[in-house]
């Protein structure tokens, strides 16, 4: 059993990258590009923008990036073509594809072409941010036995949760939900992310929002209500965030 000073981070599973990472965003839609730039810069990344396929392609070849965010529908040079050429030239930079086409063939195509991940437009920024974190974290296999926030601790091996030294009994779903929130602590998670990652629901049209809200409510009653500090916060219109301070 862990016995440390109250409020100490046990093991932070989220990988907080302090060194500035270079991210290239190839996106012709100005507003989307600017929003991505601002959002990712707020997470302390260096963000470069390319508005055309040609420009983006030459910059990926010429400069060193840690991640490329690539829109598939580009004027001049199509995104799929850029990706194919990059992979043929053995450029291994991770690529996250953005696409407005969510037909299954396109998804498979994107991954077959060597995309590391894809997101269908319109997407929620918190989700993109989570995907970026996941891609940048890739390869690191730190599997901590325990994760936690403030006085909340979760033992992944024993699947038990303790807050302020008091055991909190959770159902399997509630445990998975809390684990996901803990792993993304400090970052907003959307209902869609929860539906896909906790409920394993791939189709967007499946109505799980109400189900998720009910589970969050129950989790709050167990994890937050008996204690002074609230950890699970609702970000109106976006989703939920686990943090010591309200957003």
């Amino acid at each position, binding site marked *: 059993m862990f016995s440390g000073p109250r409020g100490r981070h046990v093991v932070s599973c989220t990988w907080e990258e302090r060194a500035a990472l270079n991210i290239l965003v190839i996106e012709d839609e100005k507003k989307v590009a600017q929003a991505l730039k601002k959002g990712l810069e707020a997470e302390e990344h260096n963000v470069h923008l390319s508005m055309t396929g040609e420009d983006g392609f030459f910059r990926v070849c010429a400069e060193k990036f840690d991640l490329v965010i690539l829109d598939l529908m580009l004027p001049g040079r199509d995104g799929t073509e850029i990706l194919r050429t990059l992979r043929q030239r053995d450029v291994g930079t991770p690529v996250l594809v953005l696409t407005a086409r969510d037909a299954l063939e396109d998804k498979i195509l994107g991954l077959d072409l060597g995309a590391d991940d894809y997101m269908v437009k319109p997407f929620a920024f918190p989700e993109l941010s989570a995907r970026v974190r996941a891609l940048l974290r890739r390869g690191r296999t730190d599997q901590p036995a325990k994760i936690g926030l403030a006085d909340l601790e979760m033992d992944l091996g024993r699947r038990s949760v303790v807050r302020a030294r008091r055991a909190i009994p959770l159902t399997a779903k509630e445990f998975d939900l809390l684990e996901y929130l803990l792993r993304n602590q400090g970052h907003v998670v959307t209902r869609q992310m929860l539906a896909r990652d906790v409920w394993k629901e791939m189709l967007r049209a499946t109505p*799980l929002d109400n189900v998720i809200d009910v589970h969050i409510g129950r989790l709050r009653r167990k994890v937050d209500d008996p204690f002074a500090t609230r950890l699970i916060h609702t970000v109106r219109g976006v989703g939920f965030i686990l943090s010591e301070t309200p957003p």
Partner: protein
Amino acid sequence: MRFRPASVRVRLTLWYTMVLAGIVVALFGAVYLFVRASLVRQLDSEAGAEFLAISQAVAEEPNEIAEMATEMSGRAFRLAGEGVGPYESPAFKAAGLPAIEPGEPAAGQTLTAADGRRFRVRSGPAGHGLLLTVAVPEEPVRGALRTLLVIFVLALPAGLGLAALGGSLMAGRLLRPVAVMAARAEEISAESLSSRLPIEDPSDEFGRLATVFNRMLARLEESFDRLRRFTADASHELRTPLTVIQSVGEVALQEDLDTAAYRDRIGSMLEELNRLSRLVDSLLTLTRADAAAAAVRRTEIDAVRLAARAVEDMRPLAEEKGQDLTLSGGEPVTVQADEGTLRLALVNVLDNAVKYAPAGGTIDVGVRAGNGQVLIEVADNGPGVPAAHVGRIFERFYRVDQSRSGESGGTGLGLAIAKWAVEVNGGRIEYAARDGGGSLFRLVLPVARV
């Protein structure tokens, strides 16, 4: 290259006229041959009578041939024999007919004279060792046949022309309903789908054709109406969140608010945006039906396990309303389906049941196989669907209670999506009212291929 007139009427008339011409020509040919044969036979018997008359005269008065020849100067004959110089009548001589030697066959034969005239010839022994040859001119017979031919050749085009005219008039009369139908069909557009083609006689071919067309028009009209309703509903559903976003944003810009209040306004806008986004997702799922059907990957899955998972997912919602959600069926039931879409269907039906069953009610989910089908049934003890609405509950945006629009986060597309999702899996969805109240939704799926 084939000649093919555009008009059915012209084609019919041409065919009819050609067949008629063939028949008439064949008939005339037969008549002509028969008449000619009988005329020739008449000529032959004439020659035979002549032969008999002359040979009798020769037999009675063998020494007065020259005298006799003068008497019968209009007749063409020739007498020859051993030691008797050939004697030819003036008519025979004038024609310059070739001599016929004894032994040659000389009955029913035609000889051509030096001047081109044709003669029917009869020759034979006339007693006293004489050979008699009688020639009868064919000219009168040939003239009659020529006249017959001329009459026919002149009458044929006129007759055929009349027949064609009559045929064309008749064809035009028969085909008139088609022209009327075409003219009416020409006028029918999306705006006037309620009009129908005229039917003169429902039992004939054209009448049946018009009936079939009218039925098609009825179906078209119905789907156009559905589309119109859908467009109206969709624009309403899409405009509502847009209006909220616009007005909240505009009002917030005019006000001088603190950060928290602005956040709240933005959050409110994002909520509506999510609603809009979800709506667009659902609509795209429905409208891309064909493309998605190709993307559906059907594998063998256990319907009981799938139902159990959907029930577990939806249980919290039922619990919040104090409803009893149960699943019956234990043995695995294999079904050939795409797990994602089938789950989508069941979750939507369950979501609907939780929404409409009363607080404290019951929802039973049953899975069973039989008759080559797998049935997943969702039964609730809610108010059920009023009979007048049953036919339309699977339509997009259709709500039994129109005032519920937008309430409880529903898009009004749940059952439409369920229907679509079952159908891409080769199944169907049915609604039945339960005895004693409540709804029963039945997902019927083809059983796995063995």
